[in-house]
């Protein structure tokens, strides 16, 4: 990513969570992590994030898509991650940016930046529309 970004990583596997934290922090980003819906909501309540990176397959009642919707409502850009390549078509339909494992670190950074820019543009349009209505 070309500039520092606040990112919430949502992943239940501790090893993967720390790996994502490491590579994103190493690029100068401000990274927090969460492992389930409860922690995601607490993090989103506590502060704003530019982006959330969410593993689609999370244990428990709430899957990654449901948490992505909650994050999006708070103005966060969303990037979904999955290891199941059969899910690509379904993820395409969500409208969110997504990555299929394994991916290059550069691709993670690029996709997160693209998602963040898209969300910023949407927020600007919404503010303009609200002012004129």
């Amino acid at each position, binding site marked *: 990513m070309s500039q520092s970004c606040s990112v919430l990583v949502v992943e239940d596997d501790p*090893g993967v969570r720390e*790996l994502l934290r490491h590579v994103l922090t*190493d*690029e*100068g980003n401000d990274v927090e992590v969460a492992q389930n819906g409860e922690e995601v909501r607490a993090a989103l309540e506590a502060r704003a994030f530019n982006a959330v990176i969410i593993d689609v397959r999370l244990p428990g009642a709430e899957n990654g898509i449901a948490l992505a919707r909650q994050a999006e409502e708070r103005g966060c850009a969303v990037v979904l*991650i999955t290891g199941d390549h059969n899910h690509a078509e379904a993820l395409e339909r969500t409208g969110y940016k997504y990555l299929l*494992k*394994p991916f*290059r670190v550069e691709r993670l950074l690029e996709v997160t930046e693209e998602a963040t820019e898209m969300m910023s543009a949407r927020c600007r349009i919404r503010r303009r529309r609200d002012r004129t209505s």
Partner: protein
Amino acid sequence: MERRATILIVDDEATLRAVFSDMMTRQGYRCITAANAVDALQIIESNLLELDMLVTDIKMPGALDGVALASKLRELQPGVAVLVITGYPESAAMKEAKARRYRVLEKPFRQAELEEAVAEELRQRLGADEARRAVASVTPIAQARKGKAR
């Protein structure tokens, strides 16, 4: 975005791990470290990131050794470069590494020898042009980006 080779470094000795990581980061590579074979296997089996290279000590505490890690990674990512480091050139694991044609570096070695072994293995795996781009041109960009972020 400039491509930087991503290297997984595995060594149970914290000092060596830090030295290798620092040295390769200064060379312009992106480094991920694991303190033991179990942590490394978790990173490998998650298959989250596309790795360019594994640099691993052969002998580590526990049942898994560096050769087993390399074999597992090659199963998932066949094109990955491998460099195994050993202080026991006559060990069974070492013979296995040679049989699998992994690049081997015997301790003790100079910093320049490690740098050359990493660069040469990446050249073979990525091709000369891409390996050069993954190292030389990237360091100033990476440093500039980090400087800006702070």
